[in-house]
């Protein structure tokens, strides 16, 4: 399998604090990578560089073997990289359908009229596709959804607009058991329909349930790259994260 995204020799300083120290990181096509590490290890910093929220002090990013210049989140989205946080990516007052199509609204006629019928229809189908089981009308405002349902909407949007890489930074935080299972299911569905994912979570059990490969950061350095969750134990990975064993 070829690399979808490759980050090479990434360094990031915040003032004199070094958050990332020569980190190289790749995601293959149709792969879910679990990014693990203790608090402050640099996980969020790394994916923020990829999603355009931060820029690296040095290092290169390649997307499908082409050097990529990602300066802001808009650039990243154009490169097919979608990042999903708890709710920051959605407009709470607007409906599910309007959020799905935000910035790429389908219009008809001469006056830029929204094609709301089409938007609602696509939204309904997508909600079913990501695996939301209860019937939620696509005109429901995001503010009326649970945390897990919001994740589902964000994932649905990434899938519909053919994002190649979906980044989830602690998507299961503050979610109940059932909602968490839902999110994990959405992630698997996304992979099965051809997308790659980066999955960050502190709960290693959740990570083990979905990912194909685990990468571990510790204090800004990559300490493990190729852990296969099927061939190791949670305890062993925990030891690598805390530094009790070197990988």
């Amino acid at each position, binding site marked *: 399998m070829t690399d979808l995204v490759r980050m090479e020799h990434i360094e990031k300083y915040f003032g004199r604090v070094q958050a990332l120290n020569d980190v190289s990181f790749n995601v293959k096509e149709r792969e879910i990578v679990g990014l693990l590490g203790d608090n402050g290890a640099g996980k969020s910093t790394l994916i923020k560089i990829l999603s355009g929220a931060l820029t690296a002090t040095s290092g290169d990013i390649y997307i499908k073997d082409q050097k990529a210049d990602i300066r*802001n989140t808009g650039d990243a989205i154009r490169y097919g990289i979608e990042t999903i946080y708890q709710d920051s990516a959605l*407009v709470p*007052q607007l409906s599910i359908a309007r959020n799905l199509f*935000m910035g*790429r609204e389908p219009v008809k006629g001469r006056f*830029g*009229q929204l094609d709301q019928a089409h938007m609602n229809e696509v939204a309904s189908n997508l909600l079913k596709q990501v695996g939301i089981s209860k*019937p939620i009308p696509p005109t429901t405002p*995001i*503010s009326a959804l649970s945390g897990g349902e919001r994740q589902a909407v964000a994932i649905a949007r990434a899938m519909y607009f053919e994002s190649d890489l979906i980044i989830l930074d602690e998507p299961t935080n503050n979610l109940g058991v059932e909602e968490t299972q839902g999110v994990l299911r959405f992630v698997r569905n996304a992979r099965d329909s051809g997308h790659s994912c980066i999955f960050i979570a502190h709960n290693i059990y959740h990570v083990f349930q979905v990912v194909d490969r685990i990468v571990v950061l510790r204090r800004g350095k990559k300490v493990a790259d190729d852990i296969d969750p099927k061939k190791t134990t949670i305890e062993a990975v925990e030891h690598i994260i805390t530094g009790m064993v070197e990988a």
Partner: protein
Amino acid sequence: MEKRSLLQRFIARPEFGPFVLLAILLIVFYVINPTFLSTLNIGNVLAFAPELGIIALAMTLLLTAGEIDLSVGSVFGFSAVIMWTLFNSGVASLEIAFVLAMALSLVIGFCSGFMVTRMKIPSFLVTLGMLLVVRGSALYITDGFPQRTWDASGSWLAELLVGDFYIGELRVWASLLWFILLAVIIGYVLTQTKRGNWILASGGNANSARARGVRVNATKISLFMLTAALAAFAGIISSIRTSAANPNSGTGYELEVIAMVVIGGTSMAGGRGTIIGTVLGVFILRIMRNGIILIGVPGLAYNIFVGAIILGMMALHSWLERRHNAGV
């Protein structure tokens, strides 16, 4: 989600509160003094309402996009002064003077929008500064004296802006037609179009909207320009109708306009706005002003009622919001 009856859905809408309030005002004023619904008085209300109403329409979009413009009252006074000064000094014909005054208002709006979006200064502060600069300019240009306005009758431009005609006994001003036309267009844009979705998204969550390719800054700048232009338009209409261009006119209008908009159910926090609500809000305040005098409450007490209504409506909106989680 359970199916709601038509009535329940109507109650959940942000326009429900102002609608009921307007109905109550009409009934109360009429019962106390039936001349309130006389043709003459209705004509009076309809003559005044469009001027602030036109500004309120633009302010609705601006608040929905999460910004505010405090300079509308100043622009209202300034543009009329500019137009009449240019005309009186013989520099320009009335038509050219009108175009120049409107163009200047667009520049003012652009400056506010630019400072808010590019320099990231809160719009409250930018437009507070602009309020003083524009009002100061109007006073400086005129030495503080009202401008002579010539009898505008006969000019096609004046007829177009503030001509009047009668429907039966009812005297209707062209400004009312402008208000209706603008309300329909702006209401359509806000609820039905891509541009409207961008306005809502910019006010609801600017960062995520921007990340998805919504041109938040351009959207906001264009709304500042629209607001200034409509404030200028209203000021010019008012100056022709009253045959007066006073450098102080429009003082305090910004607060009245904002009150109209929020009474109508538009959120000051951005992300939610309603043109129907604003139209209701415009009539609520104009009818209050008119009706209070008709029923014999001292005019000086007007502000007490307006203040109480604003507070009451805010309480109602926040209560409804918590109950129904109304959205677009």
